[in-house]
């Protein structure tokens, strides 16, 4: 990884303009909620199918559907019109959805359009949101994932295969256009009181279902650390791919111990069969491959990001206690 150049954004005197796709996603809304921390920012152009949840006068919303045709020209025109120099591409799904064809149109084809628009409009910095899920899940992935580990989601977590192809398109773009500072952040699973995800939903249950004889380890990122990571790469040059992960991992049983919850152990083969049936019949929106997360750990090495940015995401243990509404406690030993 090349070191960060720590150069401020080349902004015109009146400030710079940020463009955002996916303004209502977790990353999009977190960044839109912290615009004061983006020094010199003049305007945010939100390109989405729905207006963002923000009353900030700097936010300008333009309707743009990434599944439409010719959106690249439309997007490029808007970027030029508003003078956007930084693009946060956050229009990705954080939970696998049933409508895989639509997901493919948004994530995979949509990213191609975004890249074409970024190129045409002369955007100087591109940030893409990604997730630990692109590495896939299950036993056969490396026990500790680095940025160079293979992306096996297409085989092991098919709900995230379009994110992988979007990442591959961005990687090709980054190689072809070294003049555009391109950053991809692969965040660990995010856990917070207001986070809506399959895993967060699971951990809110009473009791929490688990697999008999399995106790996978988790890394959870605090929503504030997720936000801070994006704020950093939006204003400073950190070209490349980074895992954003806490330094520790906590087993499911310890997560429940912190939360004061009990688990309800179930035999894996039966649950697998039941969830597969529920998914195919439309009763449940959880794809059975997600069950891999409850059997085998999914752990990232976050050193590259920590040393490049100096940011230190808080520990999984602290994030879990905050999630369950307990006071974060200091480890005295």
């Amino acid at each position, binding site marked *: 990884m090349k070191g960060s150049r720590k150069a401020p954004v080349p902004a015109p005197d009146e400030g710079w303009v940020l463009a955002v796709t996916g303004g209502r996603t977790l990353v999009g809304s977190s960044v839109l909620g912290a615009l004061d921390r983006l020094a010199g920012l003049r305007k945010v152009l939100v390109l989405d199918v729905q207006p963002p949840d923000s009353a900030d006068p700097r936010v300008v919303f333009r309707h743009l559907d990434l599944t439409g045709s010719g959106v690249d020209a439309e997007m490029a025109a808007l970027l030029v019109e508003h003078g956007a120099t930084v693009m946060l591409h956050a229009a990705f799904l954080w939970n696998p959805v049933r409508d895989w064809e639509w997901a493919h149109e948004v994530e995979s084809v949509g990213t191609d359009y975004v890249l074409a628009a970024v190129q045409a409009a002369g955007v100087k910095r591109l940030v893409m949101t990604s997730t630990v899920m692109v590495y896939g899940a299950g036993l*056969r992935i490396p026990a500790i994932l680095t940025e160079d580990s293979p992306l096996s989601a297409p085989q092991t977590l098919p709900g995230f295969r379009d994110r992988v192809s979007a990442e591959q398109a961005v990687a090709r773009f980054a190689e072809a256009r070294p003049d555009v500072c391109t950053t991809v952040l692969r965040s660990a699973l995010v856990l917070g009181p207001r986070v809506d995800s399959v895993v967060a939903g699971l951990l809110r249950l009473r009791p929490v279902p688990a697999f008999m004889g399995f106790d996978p*380890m988790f890394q959870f990122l605090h929503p504030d650390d997720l936000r801070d990571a994006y704020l950093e790469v939006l204003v400073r040059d950190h070209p490349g791919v980074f895992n954003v992960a806490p330094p520790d991992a906590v087993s499911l049983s310890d997560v429940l111990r912190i939360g004061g919850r009990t688990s309800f152990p179930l035999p894996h083969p039966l649950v697998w069969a039941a969830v597969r049936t529920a998914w195919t019949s439309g009763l449940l929106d959880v794809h059975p491959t997600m069950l891999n997360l409850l059997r085998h750990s999914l752990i990232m090495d976050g050193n590259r990001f920590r040393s490049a940015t100096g940011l230190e995401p808080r520990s999984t243990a602290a994030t879990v206690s905050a999630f369950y509404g307990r006071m974060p*406690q200091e480890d005295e030993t």
Partner: protein
Amino acid sequence: VRLPVRRTDLFGFDPDFHRAVTPSLRRAAEEFFQVRFRVDGQPEYHGPVIFVANHAGFLPLDAVVIKTLLDPLVPGHALRPLLEDHVFTVPYVGLWLNRLGCVRASQDNAMRLIDGGESVVAFPEGRKGAEKSVFERDRIMRFGRGGLVRLALRTGLEVVPVGISGPELAYPLLAKLEAVGRFFGLPFLPVTPTFPLLGPLGLVPLPVRFSIVVGDPVNLVEAAGSREPDESGVLRANELIRSRVIDLARRAAE
């Protein structure tokens, strides 16, 4: 106030658990299996080493016993056995082994452990070695495609051969029921004289005598000719270390 969490490393190794169970494992090895343990080579290694052993038995009893007895050879560290995939899909067993320090065998995982200063135990016979029936217990299977040699050459570390005999008789594998096993997420359901006949009780190992012999370190870089050898160099080094393990396993069986 400390949060009620185990202090594991990112692989899932739990040093407190390891410390707590090691005395009982040692007693089980010495009293139940009456292990004969002999070290012919160096008595201690400072800095990472790759131990290489033959495989004996479906449940990785061999790995646990080898680990328990060889731990004192790497003072200040816990040996990290590298085990086949199927071990980690077995409920409770995989979890317990993971906390004890066992890791799924792969180049990535091994490199990372060694880079972190840990010593590993490899079982290059792989699954074929773990699934030997009681009738083929004396055969040492092929050492895969040279993953061990590649690891040794990449790290430049010494490789210490280890022979073990006994565990294959603790669970004498008579037959493998593949269809039934697949239903439970296992590669096969093992049939031994006592399992599944006696139910969970049949998983209690037979009290046979174990024997372990640790040999002299082998320099595979020399055997292969260079650190980046051609295919024949890799195979030559592979056969060399395999023959050392076979010798030691024979001596262990005597």
